[in-house]
Every structure is written in structure tokens, then in C-alpha cells.
């Protein structure tokens, strides 16, 4: 059984071990022990904060395999920031269309251009998603990715109405990004991985506005390689990409300023966890050994509806769409730490 819960200080060693599997330039999860410690501390502060507007909070969740009793039970992590620009302006390239008109030649056509913009600064940002052995869509990966949004659905005042995720873009075997070669490198005068290392994966630092172009970049002037890489996702990010598009995220309007990777964004109303989430009251199953129902053929993600001690897991159930209550197994109730009469948020799988 898998659960997602807020990170705890005691998770730090496991996170450091987990981080050994990260690929540079792909994963946004903290990599060094010091960075991991800072991220955990910030998350503890964030969960503990009394806040009614989105600020500097960043919530870090871990995925735990309850059946694995070794020290390797922690198999993934994912985060959500209240606002992308809490520590500065979050920069991205907006896909703009510029209209070119020549009356006398009777020609009117549109040209694509990339404009450095701060549009996503006030959005909430999903980041740091990583699951060990994560090259296919395992249900637990979906649980980890979506649990963040279920938390946001339970505590909407802590987040923006809009969410985005920036996914790693295309790089070749040597870690070389064609989009970077055509654009960023000309201003930064260094290789992609070197730049990512120096800025620590951040897109909200002032040096970006110091170095990046201030004028629209006409797409037709980029190399063919670079144009092909625009919006293309890194193979290692295909799993989160699929999970997120299924959740309701859409890629189109923005791309990453470094590698041209896709930025997925959505209004909360477009996201399943908000739109199709069902807030139900827990009803105990009297006889735990008996099956909950012979019709328990639907898969749901289920999470605590409370803001403190958040927990999320997966379960099978009968259809819940027209009910006010949900029957949980004692195993699930224990995992979520809920009792009869508590509220939970259920989202169809």
C-alpha cells in the first residue's frame, strides 16, 4: 500500500539517498544534502503556517510504500509552491503570434515569436516530482503527482487559482539542449548543464533578466533543431507529462527559457482534483473481513480533507458520484488516520 504524506525531518536521509538517482538538468528536486534540508525545513514551516493568501510557502510530499519495511520505503517526492515567484519573478517564454501585413502585396501572415515574460509569477507551481523506478505510469506515481493537487483542493486559500508545471525539455545523450544552443548559450556563453548548475534550476533569478533577450525571439530564425525542441518533453519526463495532461493540464502558451521544454498550465477548474473531487463523509465498514461491496470496481484516490496531517492513498470502491458518504476499509482509514464521520476527498482514478 502506498501513501503520500508531508515530508518529515526524519525523511532527510532517505531523500538524500533518493536524490542519487536524479538526472541533472531534468529533475527539479533538491539534490545536495544542504538543499534537501532547506526544502524540508521550508515545507515544515509551510504546512504549519496559518495563511489565507498564497505566499512563499512550498509544500513537499513524499511517497511511501507501507509494505516495504526496509529503509527504502520512501520511493518518491513531489512539491507544490504557493506562488512561483515568491522569491523573485518567474520567467518563461510566452508563445506570441505577431501579425505581419503588407497591404499592397495583399499578404497577411502570422509569425511565431517567444517573449520573455513574467506571466506565471503569481501561479502556483508543481515541481520536484521524482519516483524511483519511474519510467512507466505506475499507479503510485499518479497518486504522488495528484496528491499535491488534492491538498490544494482541500486548502484552496493557500494557492493561486492557476497552476503550472515546467517539465524538462529535450537534451541529447551528452546533456546538450538544441534550444539552449540556439538561444540561451549566445547570452550566457556557457553550456546548458553548466548554466543549470549555476542557476540551480531556478527560473526566478534576476540574472535571467540581465542576460536573456528583452525582445521577442522570432521562431523562424531559430535553428531547425531548436524549433523541433520547442515544447518537446525529455524522455524522463514523459511520465509526469502524461499524468498531468490527464489531470487537465495543457501545454501551449509557455515554454521553458533554457531548454524550451513544455510548461503545462491550467486554471483549477480544469483540473480533475478540483472539478471532479467529491468531499464525502467516512462510514466505517462494520465487518472488515468481508468485501466492502461486490461492486467495488472503481478506482479512486482518497485524501484527508483536513489541512494538517494530510494523507492520500488509493482504493477500490463502488461508484461515489451520487453519494454523500464513502465506506473505507480499516487499512485505508488507518493509512489516512481518519475515523468514522471525518471528511475525505475522493477523486476518480
Amino acid at each position, binding site marked *: 500500500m502506498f501513501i503520500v504524506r508531508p515530508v518529515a525531518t526524519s525523511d532527510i536521509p532517505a531523500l538524500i539517498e533518493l536524490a542519487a538517482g536524479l538526472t541533472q538538468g531534468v529533475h527539479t528536486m533538491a539534490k545536495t544534502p544542504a538543499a534537501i534540508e532547506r526544502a524540508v525545513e521550508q515545507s515544515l514551516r509551510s504546512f504549519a503556517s496559518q495563511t489565507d493568501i498564497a505566499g512563499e510557502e512550498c509544500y513537499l510530499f513524499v511517497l511511501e510504500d507501507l509494505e516495504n519495511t526496509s529503509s527504502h520505503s520512501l520511493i518518491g517526492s513531489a512539491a507544490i509552491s504557493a506562488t512561483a515567484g515568491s522569491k523573485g519573478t518567474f520567467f518563461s517564454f510566452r508563445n506570441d503570434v505577431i501579425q505581419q501585413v*503588407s497591404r499592397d502585396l495583399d499578404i497577411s501572415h502570422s509569425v511565431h515569436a517567444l517573449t520573455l515574460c513574467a506571466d506565471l509569477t503569481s501561479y502556483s507551481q508543481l515541481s520536484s516530482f521524482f519516483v524511483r523506478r519511474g519510467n512507466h505510469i505506475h499507479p503510485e506515481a499518479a497518486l504522488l503527482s495528484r496528491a499535491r493537487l488534492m491538498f490544494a483542493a482541500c486548502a484552496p486559500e493557500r494557492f493561486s487559482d492557476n497552476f503550472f508545471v515546467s517539465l524538462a525539455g529535450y537534451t541529447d545523450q551528452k546533456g546538450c539542449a538544441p534550444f539552449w544552443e540556439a538561444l540561451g548559450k*549566445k547570452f550566457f556563453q556557457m553550456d546548458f548543464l553548466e548554466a543549470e548548475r549555476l542557476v540551480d534550476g531556478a527560473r526566478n533569478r534576476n540574472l535571467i533578466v540581465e542576460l536573456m533577450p528583452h*525582445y521577442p525571439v522570432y521562431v523562424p530564425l531559430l535553428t531547425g533543431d531548436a524549433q523541433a525542441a520547442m515544447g518537446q518533453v525529455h524522455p524522463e519526463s514523459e511520465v509526469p507529462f502524461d499524468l498531468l495532461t490527464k489531470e487537465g493540464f495543457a501545454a501551449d502558451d509557455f515554454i521553458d527559457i533554457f531548454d524550451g521544454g513544455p510548461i503545462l498550465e491550467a486554471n483549477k477548474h480544469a483540473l480533475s482534483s478540483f472539478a471532479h473531487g467529491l468531499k464525502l463523509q467516512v462510514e466505517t465498514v462494520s465487518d472488515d473481513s468481508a468485501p466492502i461491496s461486490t461492486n467495488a470496481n472503481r478506482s479512486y484516490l482518497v485524501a484527508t480533507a483536513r489541512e494538517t496531517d494530510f494523507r492520500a492513498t488509493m482504493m477500490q470502491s463502488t461508484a461515489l458520484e451520487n453519494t454523500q458518504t464513502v465506506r473505507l476499509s480499516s487499512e485505508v482509514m488507518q493509512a489516512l488516520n481518519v475515523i468514522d464521520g471525518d471528511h475525505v476527498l475522493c477523486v476518480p482514478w
Partner: protein
Amino acid sequence: MIVVRAIKKDDLDGLMYLATQVGDGMTTLKPDTEMLSNRIAVACASFAEQIPPEQRDYLFVLEDTDNGKIIGVSAIKSAVGLDEPFYNYRIGTLVHSSKELNVYSRMDTLYLSNDLTGCAELCSLFLHPDYRNNNNGRLLSKCRFLFIAQFPHLFSEKLIAELRGFQYPDGSSPFWDNLGRHFFKMDFNRADDISSLGKKSFIAELMPRHPLYVAYLPKVAQDVIGQVHVDTAPARRLLEQEGLYYEGFVDIFDAGPVLQARVNELRSVRLSELLEVVDCSAALLSDPAAAEPMLVANTSIQDYRIIVSDLLPHHGQLQLTLEQQQVLGCSVKSQVRAMPLNAKNEAKNEVRKIGENYNEP
């Protein structure tokens, strides 16, 4: 004798013949009777000062007085861009630096601009192949500088000349192929047709308007910015010797350089002199050993005439033969304006080539 003079109404046939000898690449001298007769009409009105200075188009012809043939032409347009926008790319600099990363990037940029609007332009120079010898090419080009020196009040502050840019032997332009073509979703032949009608501004409307970093272009396109066509290199040097400089403006199609000068810094304006005509029959005033070709022009705008003579001025006087006086339409005691044909630092071998390959658009 060879003389350059203001064009006249009855030069149409001569100009038409000349225009038939012009190859491609010269958009302003096509063998089109209507177009040429319109142009002559404007030019005659210009020399007659019947139209406002900024609308004028001074057209000069090179005539062989021995047979009355018109063997060359050149022009000064008083002001560009007043009818339809005159576009260029201007090369600018933007510095991007970050002390935190210790990065300092000095980037060249291209700005689509109309900055040269209102400048006077040297254009339309063509010399018949049979006459590409002696000083004919240089006379035809330089006559315009002496004209400006004589009538500086008719010109705006700045003078420009657009020069043909780099091309491969097959006629293709690496600059166009890597920039304009991306924005010009039209068959190249059609583009070329439109351009040769002088409708550049229509095409410019389709070019990117936001500043472009030159670094976005492939190196082969970057390298030709401000470079002239190989055949135009001698013309470039000649204009530079008269005081024109490349100041970072280039053609939007082929990135050929625009040379420019402040009118009052031109060699002709600084160094030409008004001299009194003296007859040649008396003893030579100046040392014949020191003789060098001089440009000599009369001071009439309506019947402007200019020749090359070999005698040096002496104490404000210049000796001219009777024939020279007749060709210039002047006589003893008349004033003429003169300056050495060659600039001090002109490398003579190079400028000899002028006229052979000189093509102003």
C-alpha cells in the same frame, strides 16, 4: 571632349539607348520610355528649380562632344523616404552582463529603421562599356560631389549611397536566405520583381520589426553584413575617399552597406575652390610637371557642366583652353569651381576600375 552636364528634355532617346545597355541589378534605370521621360521631366524641373528642393532628382549625363552621344548617367536624389518609407537595418549594440555569473555579452543587433529618411542619395550611375577608360567613370561619379559643393544649400545635412551587398556567384544572398526569406512567404522571383519596381517598403512591412540579435543568424549571414558585392568594392573605396563612411546601416535584403556623410564634411565641400578663368594662350601659370587631373565645373545650376582638365590652379586662377571654356559655357573672368579629381590618399590602381563594375542601385 568628354563633359558631364545637366540632363535636357531631348536626351530621352540617348538615355533610352543607354538603359538598354544596363544589365540586371540596377533598378532605377530600366529601358521604359514612360518611366525615363517622367524622370527626365523631374530632373529638368529640378535643375530649373521649379519644384521644392526635397522633391528634386538631379540627373547628370556624360556626353562625348565629338559625336553628341550620351555615354553615361548618374544622379543625386534630394531626399529619400518622403513618398514611401525608406527602410534599412541599423546595426546597434546591446550589452548583457551579469556580475553574479561573471558574464559580459556584447551583442550586435539589427533594428528595422527609417532613420535615413530625408537624406540625399547618390544613385543611378551607369557608364557605357565602350567608354570605361581614362577618367570617365570617376568624372561621372565625382561630378555630383562638386555639384553639392557648389549648391550645398539645396541639400539636407546628410548624403548617402546604397551599395550592392555580397552575393554568391549564383546570385544568391546568404543574408536574404537566412533572414528575409523566413518572413517573406512568397516566391523569390515575385519578391525580386516587386523589389525591382522599387517597392521595397512593401517587403519591409513583412520583415521583423523587433530588434534582432545578429547572433541568431548563421555565421555565413553574419559575415556578410556591411560587405559589398565584389564588383562594387572599387566604388566603395571611391566614395570613402570622398568622405563617406559605413556607419552601420545596411540594406534589408542583402545587408549591403549604406555609406553616408555629413554634407559639410565631404572632401569636395572642404577642399574645392572657386577660381577665375584665365585663357590658356599666355604662358602657363602653374608648373606643367606638377599637373594632375582637376574637376572643373561652371557655377550655373540650370546648365551645369563639368569636365576634367590637367592644369593646376595658381593664386585663385585657372587656365582653360578655349574649347574647355566653350564646353563649360564660360569665358575668361568667369568663376569656376574646381578640385583635384583624385583624393590625396587615393590608390590610383584601384580607382581605375571604377566604371567597369560600378553599379549603384
